[in-house]
Structure formats: C-alpha cells, structure tokens
C-alpha cells in the first residue's frame, strides 16, 4: 500500500484513526501495531513473515544483550549474530540477483538460479533494527522489554516502506508514553496533506516530462531537451521522496509520534557536503553514526580519511539500489566530497554565493543521470547529449513546445523547493494573523481537493474500442 493511493487515504487511514482515538490508552499501541502489520501484509502478504521473524530474532538478541550477567565475549558474539542475520537478509534479498548477474556476465555463463523478489522496505527496517541492536550493545539505550513496543518500532506503518529511518534512541521514550492531543493531530494531518500534494500534484506531473524524454530515441533528443528532462527528474525525485517523508512525519504526528526532519531544502545548498546534510538526513546520520565514525571518522590521517569516505559512499550508492549504476552514483559523490574536503574547502568560502549554488546544482543534476540510467551505454550517450558531444541538435521545435507547456509547473516546483513560501507565510502570519488562519484553512482544503482529483484522475482509463 502506498500513501498516495485512494485505498490508503480514504479507507485505511480513517479506520485506523477512528480505532486509535476511540480505544483506551493501553490499546492504542496494539491498534497501531495491528494496522502496521496489515499495511505491510497488504503489499507483501508472504514477506510479512520475514518482517515478523526479523522482529522476533532482534527482540531476543536485544533481550540477551541487555542482561546484566552477559559477559563481554557473549555480547560481542550476539552482536555479530545479529549483524550477520540482518545484513545477510538484506544482502540475500536485495543483492543476490546483482551478484549472480555480475558473475554470469563476467564469465559469460548462463546461471539458472532463483532470484528472490525484493521485500518492501527491507532496506529501511533493517537499518532501524540495526540501530537498536547496536545501541543496546553499546549501552546507549536499554533493551526494550515489551515485544509489542519493539514490533511497533520496527514495523510502524508511517515509515516502514520508505523511511525516514528512525533511530531507536530518538524514539525510545515516545514508544510507551507520548503526548496525544488535538493540536498534534491536525498539524500532523496538514503535514500529511503537504506531502500528498507534493507527490500527486508536483512529482507525478513533472515526472511525465522526464518519462517522455527518457522514452525518446537517443538521436532525437536535443541538448536543451536533455537538460529540461533531467531537471524535471531532479524536481520529481525531490518532491517524490520528500513528499513521502512529509507524509510519514505527518502520519506519525497524527498518532502522537515526533520524527526528525528528513529533508531541509536540499537544492538551496551551496556545497556537496551541505547538500548531503539536507538530503535524506535520517539516512546520512545513520551512516555517519554506525559506519563512518566506526571506521575512525575524521580523526585519522588523510589516506585513511579518503578510504573511509569511499567505503561510506560505495555503501551509500549500493544501498540505493541493486545495480552498479547506483554504486557509480555513490562513488561520484564520494569523489566530489573528497575533492571538496581536501582542495576546495578553503577557496570555496571566497566564491560568490551564486557561483557556489550553481556549482552544487550542476553536479547534483549530473549525479541524477547516474542514478536514473541502469544501463551504462544509455547513461553515457545521455551525458554526451547533455554536453553537446553526440552531434545532436542544440534546440528543436519539440523542446520549445514542451517548455511552453511545462513552464508554469517548473516555476511552481522551483518555488516550492525553496524555503521562500514558508518565510513569506510566517511574515504574513505575524502581520495579519486572522487572514492568515483563514488563508491556511482554504489552502489545505484546496490541497485535499486537488490531490483527490489527481489521485482519482490518474486512474481514468477510458476504453476506446468498446463494442456495445
């Protein structure tokens, strides 16, 4: 089930909310857990057993790790068992296919092995449970005694399929006891609506342009069209992903949970490292805490630092998908960060703001080419087109038509990706409190109305050759 589906918004959500708020305090977490397991099982009826298995095993390991009489050696052994199990599951279900295909390619063999399909959200919930086990091992948090609360933490429906990755330490105190009030409910609902609108109004629509460009034969794409397309994708992926995070944060809030922010206007950043502090924050901080710092972090010699950065960015790339182009994408950012850290850091401070911003956007946009094309040949030919190497036309009629049609949407998206509207709104709130309240109400009603229209409208499917 995805949040932007009619079944979720108009059936699953109202039923869950009504049950949650009509039952007493002790049942709330049970309602949420049941709803979460149902939500997960709806999309993955078989793999829900894998999720439950992972919950049980990690719960037991946590309980054993937390025992007072556990010796140091046993605790280390338990941690290793947990790491092998969690990372092993992830590796098998996500990367087994990639490994087999690569081996088959290298040796040009024909390997006939059953490749498992990817369980929904496994990359996210594995990271969440790992954060729990590692923190219990490190003594940073106490083991969770209640199986229900631990299961709820691992499978909570707002974030189980697409993040944010909530670290156990951040949410420990909220699991058993949290403030549930009206204020939180409606501000959460508004956040959910923002995310929904980002997804169905902005991401899906600007995404149409990119799908069209991607479907065009390589020789027919003009240089301008290539840029228009990849910029459309740049906007699409931001609104898609940050919209999904907004919906998750909003849903969490509706049930009393406070999750940390996952996106902070990444496209206004002025350096690659700043971009990564603003993009998918929960993921970056997970990697920093459990991988980068474990490897020694910043406090090592230059060579080790470079090695650490490359390990982290290799894994970051690999995490994003089981295909080598993601690794390339990760290493691309790793290289840029090394260059920034070693050479550019000092001189960049003197660059004009606009130059820094253009530098960041240019490299991020190029980065999305690596991210989007799984096929290396297509990727290279698209890059060549972007830089006018392929001999394609600079500009053609088609791109002018497209740009005219999409101009309004581009402008809306670019404004919406900046903090400007929020700043203006806060300013307006200070000066005209009453009008602001009215305007905000109208705004959210409009978001709801148009999001519904777009959700229903996208399923419009007239049958053209119908015989009566």
């Amino acid at each position: 089930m995805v949040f932007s589906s009619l079944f979720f918004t108009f059936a699953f959500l109202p039923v869950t909310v009504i049950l949650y708020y009509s039952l007493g305090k002790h049942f709330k977490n049970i309602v949420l857990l049941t709803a979460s397991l149902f939500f997960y099982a709806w999309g993955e009826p078989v793999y829900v057993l894998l999720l439950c298995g992972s919950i049980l095993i990690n719960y037991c390991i946590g309980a054993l790790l937390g025992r007072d009489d556990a010796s140091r050696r046993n605790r280390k052994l338990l941690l290793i068992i947990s790491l092998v199990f969690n990372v092993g599951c992830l590796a098998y279900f996500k990367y087994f296919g990639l490994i087999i295909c690569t081996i088959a390619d290298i040796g040009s063999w024909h390997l006939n092995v059953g490749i498992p399909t990817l369980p929904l959200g496994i990359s996210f919930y594995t990271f969440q449970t790992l954060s729990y086990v590692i923190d219990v091992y490190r003594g940073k948090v106490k083991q969770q005694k209640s199986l229900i609360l631990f299961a709820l933490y691992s499978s909570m429906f707002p974030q189980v399929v697409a993040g944010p990755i909530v670290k156990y330490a951040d949410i420990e105190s909220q699991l058993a006891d949290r403030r549930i009030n009206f204020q939180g409910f409606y501000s959460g609902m508004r956040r959910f609506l923002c995310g929904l609108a980002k997804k169905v109004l902005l991401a899906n629509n600007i995404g149409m342009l990119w799908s069209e460009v991607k479907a065009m034969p390589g020789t027919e794409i003009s240089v301008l069209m290539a840029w228009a397309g990849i910029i459309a994708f740049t906007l699409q992926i931001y609104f898609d992903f940050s919209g999904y995070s907004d919906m998750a944060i909003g849903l969490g809030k509706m049930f009393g949970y406070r999750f940390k922010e996952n996106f902070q206007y990444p496209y206004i950043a002025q350096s690659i490292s700043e971009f990564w502090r603003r993009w998918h924050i929960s993921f970056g901080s997970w990697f920093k805490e459990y991988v980068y710092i474990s490897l020694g972090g910043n406090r090592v010699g230059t060579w080790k630092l470079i090695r650490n950065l490359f390990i982290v960015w290799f894994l970051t790339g690999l995490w994003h998908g089981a295909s080598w182009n993601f690794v390339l994408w990760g290493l691309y950012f790793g290289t840029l960060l090394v260059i920034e850290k070693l050479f550019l850091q000092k001189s960049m401070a003197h660059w004009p703001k606009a130059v820094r911003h253009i530098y960041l956007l240019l490299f991020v946009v190029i980065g999305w080419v690596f991210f989007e094309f799984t096929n290396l040949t297509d990727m290279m030919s698209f890059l060549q087109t972007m830089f006018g190497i392929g001999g394609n036309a600079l500009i053609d009629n088609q791109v002018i038509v497209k740009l005219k049609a999409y101009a309004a949407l581009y402008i809306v998206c670019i404004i919406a990706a900046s903090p400007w509207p929020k700043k203006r709104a806060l300013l307006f709130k200070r000066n005209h409190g009453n009008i602001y309240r009215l305007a905000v109400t109208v705004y959210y009603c409009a978001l709801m109305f148009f999001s519904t229209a777009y959700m229903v409208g996208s399923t419009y499917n007239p049958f053209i050759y119908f015989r009566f």
Partner: protein
Amino acid sequence: MRRNNKKNLAIIQNIVCMLPFLFILAMFIVHLALPDKTFSKEERRYLAQWPVFHIEKVLDGSYANKVKSYFSDQFPFRNFWVHIHKGSNQILLQGEDSNSADVDLAVQGK
C-alpha cells in the same frame, strides 16, 4: 456570555481545522453508503467490483490489486474528480494531457 462566545469560536475553529479529515471521513462513508456501479458510460467500460476472497489470491498479491481498482473505479463522484483533474491539467500544462506518471520513486527499488 463573552466566555461562551469564545468557547463557541474555539469549537468552530477546531472544526474548520479538521475539514480535510472530515472530508476523508465523509468520502469513506459515502463510498460505503452508495451502491456500486457496474458500468461507466464516460469510460465505456465495466467497472471493477469488490473481489471475491480467495486465500491464494491474497497470497499472490492480486487481491490487493483488485481492491485497489475497485476503490478507484467506485470512488464517489468519480466523473466529477476526473473532470477536475482534466480541467486543471488543461490550465497547468496547457493541454499537455496524458495520465500522470504514477511511479513511486521513494518506494521503488529500495
């Protein structure tokens, strides 16, 4: 008296704040209350019906897909929403009208 007014105002404000959620709730109830249609003149096709429960269909995921189509096909005032969608696309994208790319980058391939 004044206190009462203030109280009333607060209640009205709260209800207004909840409008989007009340809308969701209303659509859900209307959906349950309205009889299902079998045929759509506008789309010239038969509409999806509530699927019959089979455990095998649940396990292979096709049941969830059928419920999804049932939900969108039988959504209250479907033609009205389709109309709004088309109209606003006409304004926003100047008639650049094909169905929205319904892909989930956030969920895909993760």
